[in-house]
């Protein structure tokens, strides 16, 4: 028998030291990162402003906004996990509903009988709630479900933004009567009687000049969450669930009438949708639809000339690793003239590290063969928390899009966590997970609660730096919906955050002096009047950036339709190229900076 060869003492000691070094590495790395963060955190607010170019200050109360979201109380059969099941509904969207040139905001409540609020911007830094006066407050009456979000679009091209209210319940369409009042036109529009929806967007998928509507279900539409027949209502998988709500695509026929065409157009899915956004991702001139699904992979519906959609998630590279998609936001993150798509997911240290996704078109990939790669890790925007809403916007006017992500799921008892129980049942087979009766009781514990937010500043060199605490975003509410808009017409983007069972926050932005900007307010003529789907490509200082007018993005939110471009120190813009949904192109040569430029589609 061969005798084992004893290693030399030197080798033994060397390997042992190597082993200890390996064990020590995570601790040393952690220490290095903490020291690095501490060094940055010690800066004063003026240093922060100089270093990052902006600071945010929460100003909701001083602005006259006093709104706290209330969650629904569903069927008593769900009492043991009520806060987890009823963990969505806080939503906010920005609109200038009365066309006075100042951005207003609409925020929804989700308590049975609760009132939504329409805060009219008075133009002096103050807001007043006019929802009751215009007929948009009392929309959560028992028996009709509760609000989950609202999107604005001028479906009849009369110049005033109308609002589609989606609910866990009866969806509603309200016509805007010249900014004075709203009329419920749900029946005329032939909307379905009940949808448990968590996403809706306006888009003109066939570029016929009339806004169409996409609506994504979460729970199946057959379920009335207040009157359950049984407890078999949960997803049948944590990652592959296909027992959620159906999708709807309403084609605008004109005259306030809509036709549901989803199946005819190739959209047939029962994944649990939480977010959708539409953008011309391939340069075809038609908007594609990106859907972020909870408990599964995202879906990408490619628009084939306005005639049909084709689901191509796998082909495009975004339809593999299933996660918990909760937002879908587009942005030209690398100033390459192409949209990336950000999808938020769940990350909890030591338990579940899904990581958020930033889908960026692969180099050389475009047109019908476009494919994406997840650049979230490479760019440093991967680890959020239990992330919900996210939006791209140039918060410091340096010419690069930054990223605001809100986090936090259910904050109850700070010292007791439901994570263990959640992970226990979420990993189980469908026979177990799909029955709410099998879910352990929440018993007042938190699940991904009290989480800090993420504000990632784009350094323009392909990396983002997280600065939330430093620039003033310190809240730990259960964030849901994020919307960006310039509420003071001052050329900076303020941030609205709707929190579940928490206050609506308005973070006012202060940008360091010497940074310039340009805002474009587009109005369609041959295209839909809201100009949703119009693209503007701005060229300045040897750079370019692409933006589009969106009919809804993020999680249950809608940014101001006006496009905001930061320009950095540049004092001149070479040109702006606009492509309208009608296909018309328009070039603005050397527009002045630091102005809100109104642009009407040329006839």
């Amino acid at each position: 028998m061969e005798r084992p060869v004893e290693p030399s003492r030197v080798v033994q000691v060397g390997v042992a030291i190597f082993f200890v070094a390996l064990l020590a590495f995570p601790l040393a790395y952690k220490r290095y990162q903490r020291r690095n963060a501490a060094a940055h955190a010690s800066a004063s607010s003026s240093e922060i402003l100089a270093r990052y170019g902006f600071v945010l200050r929460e100003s909701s109360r001083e602005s006259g906004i006093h709104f706290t979201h209330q969650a629904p109380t569903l069927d008593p059969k769900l009492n043991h996990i009520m806060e987890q099941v009823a963990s969505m509904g806080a939503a906010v969207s920005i609109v200038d509903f009365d066309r006075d040139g100042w951005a207003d905001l609409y925020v929804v409540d989700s308590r049975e009988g609760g009132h939504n609020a329409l805060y009219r911007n008075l133009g002096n830094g103050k807001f007043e709630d006019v929802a009751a006066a215009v007929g948009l407050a009392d929309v959560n009456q028992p028996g009709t479900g509760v609000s989950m979000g609202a999107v604005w679009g001028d479906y009849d091209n009369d110049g005033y933004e109308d609002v589609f209210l989606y609910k866990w319940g009866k969806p509603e369409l309200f016509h805007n009567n010249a900014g004075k009042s709203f009329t419920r036109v749900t029946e005329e529009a032939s909307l379905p009687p009940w949808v448990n929806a968590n996403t809706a967007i306006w888009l003109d998928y066939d570029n016929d000049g009339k806004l169409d509507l996409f609506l994504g279900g979460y729970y199946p539409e057959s379920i009335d969450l207040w009157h359950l027949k049984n407890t078999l209502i949960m997803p049948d998988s944590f990652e592959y669930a296909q027992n959620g709500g159906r999708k709807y695509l309403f084609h605008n026929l004109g005259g306030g009438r809509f036709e549901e065409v989803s199946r005819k157009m190739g959209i047939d899915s029962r994944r649990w949708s939480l977010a959708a956004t539409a953008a011309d991702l391939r340069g075809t001139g038609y908007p594609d639809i990106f859907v972020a699904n909870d408990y599964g992979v995202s879906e990408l519906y490619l628009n084939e000339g306005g005639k049909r959609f084709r689901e191509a998630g796998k082909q495009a590279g975004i339809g593999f690793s299933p996660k918990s998609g909760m937002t879908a936001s587009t942005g030209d993150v690398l100033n390459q003239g192409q949209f990336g798509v950000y999808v938020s997911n769940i990350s909890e240290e030591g338990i579940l590290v899904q990581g958020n996704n930033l889908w960026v078109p692969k180099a050389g990939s475009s047109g019908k063969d476009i494919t994406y790669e997840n650049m979230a890790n490479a760019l440093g925007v991967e680890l959020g928390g239990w992330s919900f809403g996210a939006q791209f916007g140039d918060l410091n006017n340096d010419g690069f899009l930054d990223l605001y992500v809100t986090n936090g799921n259910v904050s109850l008892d700070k010292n007791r966590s439901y994570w263990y129980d959640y992970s226990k049942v979420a990993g189980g087979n469908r026979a177990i997970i799909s029955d709410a009766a099998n879910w352990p009781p929440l018993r007042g514990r938190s699940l991904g609660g009290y989480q800090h937010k993420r504000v990632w500043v784009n350094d323009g060199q392909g990396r983002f730096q997280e600065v939330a605490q430093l620039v003033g975003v310190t809240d730990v509410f259960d964030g849901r919906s994020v919307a960006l808009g310039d509420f003071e017409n001052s050329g900076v983007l303020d941030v609205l955050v709707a929190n579940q069972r928490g206050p609506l926050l308005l973070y006012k932005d202060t940008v360091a002096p010497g940074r310039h900007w340009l805002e474009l307010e587009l109005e369609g003529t041959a295209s839909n009047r809201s100009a949703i789907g119009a693209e503007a490509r701005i060229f300045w200082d040897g750079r370019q950036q692409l933006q589009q007018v969106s009919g809804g993005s993020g999680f249950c939110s809608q940014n101001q339709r006006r496009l905001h471009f930061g320009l950095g120190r540049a004092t001149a813009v070479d040109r702006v190229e606009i492509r309208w949904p009608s296909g018309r192109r328009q070039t603005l040569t050397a527009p002045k900076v630091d102005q809100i430029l109104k642009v009407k589609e040329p006839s």
Partner: protein
Amino acid sequence: MIEQPPANTPAVPPSPPSLFARFFSPGNRYLAPLLITSILVAGQLRFGLLESFSRTSLAIATAIILELVLGRLVVRKWPHLASAYITGISVGILLRSPDFWPYALCSALAITSKYVIRWRGRHLWNPSNFSISAMLLLAPEYVATLSIQWGNDIWAMAIVWVLGAFIVWRVKRFHITLTYVLSFLALSAVRAAILGDPFLSEVAPLTGPMYQLFIFFMITDPRTTVRSVRGQCVVVFLVAVVEMILRLAGSVVAPFYALAIVGPIAMAIDLSRASRAVASPIKRSA
């Protein structure tokens, strides 16, 4: 280990074992790597199981390279790489991190532990169990364990269970898996009674893929299990008991920690007893 022929060898030599029997024999060191690779490839193609191919490749490459280096340096032999490959692939599947370095570090820890933490010439911990437990303990900010399911389909689960059970039966480790599963089920009832939670919620983890890897590949590792069949059953029962205690304390990664605690203690006791058994006749004769 190749079994010796029995003493009463018949006059007529038996026909050589079939290819099937040879392939599914305990001596086939390629069996486990082939099975785990099949699961990985099928899981990735069907369900997107892996964090990414590149991260899993990094884990495998690190394990293999380090095994070669340390084998050559410490034992002065070129080691068989099946074990390192399984370690790398286990790390690649079970570890979850958005970063790359945890995959390399975890594999490196696993392989190095085999050469450093030894007792009477044997390593005590299952290498990947040790390194994953260490990573979860030392770097929870950066890593988690497998969170993805394999379709959550009863048929996908059944295939893995049947195939896994067949393999461990062929390599004579089925009693370990069975003892653990029965212990887990019984202790699930105990946990449900203590916590007042639904019994099925306590059983649920067993139906997930993390446990399928755990019960078929980790607790049955021949290098880090005790010698006797009875001892093996007692040890996995104790693993299940410690796991229950950790679960009651709310540990999400209870099975890994339980095996990391019970496994080396059992191995140390087993090796001590083996050593005493060898030494005692000499003592008596002296």
